[in-house]
């Protein structure tokens, strides 16, 4: 099964995988070869993980769409970062900053601030795996 992950700026993943976990809007979807055709939006921040050549890889994906076909999965990310390119310490720092921002805003918390936490969390998770 061919997995392609593209962001507007570049192609991040283009390889054959045995399975993939996709952060779809309504929850994670596991895709294996032969999956029924499916289109879905993605979570504002989630971790896409896949197995290629016996190795586990992760990509932090921040929103977008996924198209699943029996022989391929194509992820159209608004933006994305491969797990191995993420600096774990920086990601944690970003998460702490985002959480502090939400706490500071209190009841008047904006959607942007809340989404930033989700995105930062995704980066932390992608780096950790």
């Amino acid at each position, binding site marked *: 099964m061919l997995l392609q992950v593209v962001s507007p700026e570049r192609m991040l993943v283009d390889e054959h995988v045995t399975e993939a976990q996709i952060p779809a809007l309504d929850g994670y979807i596991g895709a294996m070869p032969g999956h029924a055709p499916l289109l879905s939006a993605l979570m504002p921040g989630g971790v896409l993980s896949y197995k290629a050549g016996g190795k586990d890889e992760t990509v932090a994906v921040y929103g977008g769409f996924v198209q699943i076909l029996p022989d391929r999965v194509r992820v*159209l990310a608004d933006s994305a970062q491969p797990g191995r390119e993420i600096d774990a310490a920086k990601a944690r720092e970003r998460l702490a900053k985002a959480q502090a921002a939400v706490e500071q805003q209190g009841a008047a918390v904006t959607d942007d601030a809340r989404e930033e936490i989700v995105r930062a969390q995704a980066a932390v998770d992608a780096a950790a795996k």
Partner: protein
Amino acid sequence: MPSLIDIRRRIRSVKNTQQITKAMKMVSAAKLRRAQDRVIAARPYAAQMREMLADLAAAAEEQGETSSSPWLTRREVKRIDLIFMTSDKGLAGAFNSSLMKASQRFLAEHSGAEVTLTLVGRKGRDFYKRRHGGILSEHVNILNKPTIEDARNVAREVIRRYRDGETDAVYLLNNEFKSVMAQTLSVMQLLPAAPPAKKAEPVDYIYEQPPLEMLDQLMPRYVEVAVFRAMLETVAAEHAARMTAMDKASTNAKEVIETLTLNMNRIRQAAITKEIIEVVSGAAAAEE
């Protein structure tokens, strides 16, 4: 007749200019290569997006929901938003002037509609600042290394206006990179999007969200990516144009130097000849 010193001075000045134009040509060549790489890197996303858009539009049509979506219905075009892209810097030959001409042609052709401008690049901004009443926004100095974030900033307000019915069509006017020698002007209608070509065998997808809802999310991204791509193309085309212009300027400088050197040598020789004649005739006078 100009004196020797004057000509020497001019040769020196032209040589300096030539060094600058040569350096600028090299810089542009290097930047062009990088810009081209980025254009190529952005292609897969755009291609994939078109495909998904076609699927979603077809699915929405099948469900007979097109009339409720602002993205799929066409309105009578009374108001137009034009995103006009130029470069920030000059010295790129006819790169910007051909864009200005094209934009004026566009305004003339659509004189029946009210055209609002979104200006990207300093040259276009300076040109239209005092010439056109309806300017939505200006984006200067973002073309150095454009990111998708920059494109989103440019597109955001235009997308909102179209969705809320404040404008009836969105166009994009920019230069595209064709080859190092040539740029092509591109006038593209972004919204309403042209109905995508129907696929021979439509895939029967499971839609996790209703197609129309996904379309609502996808269409703004479609516009953002089109703007992003146009920005990358503009940058590549600009560097190509500057490279060609600077190459021509270097060649011109070389020609000027050659002519001046020839002139200088002539004058030098004339001066020497004159001196010899003076010496000879002086000697002849002394002998007599």
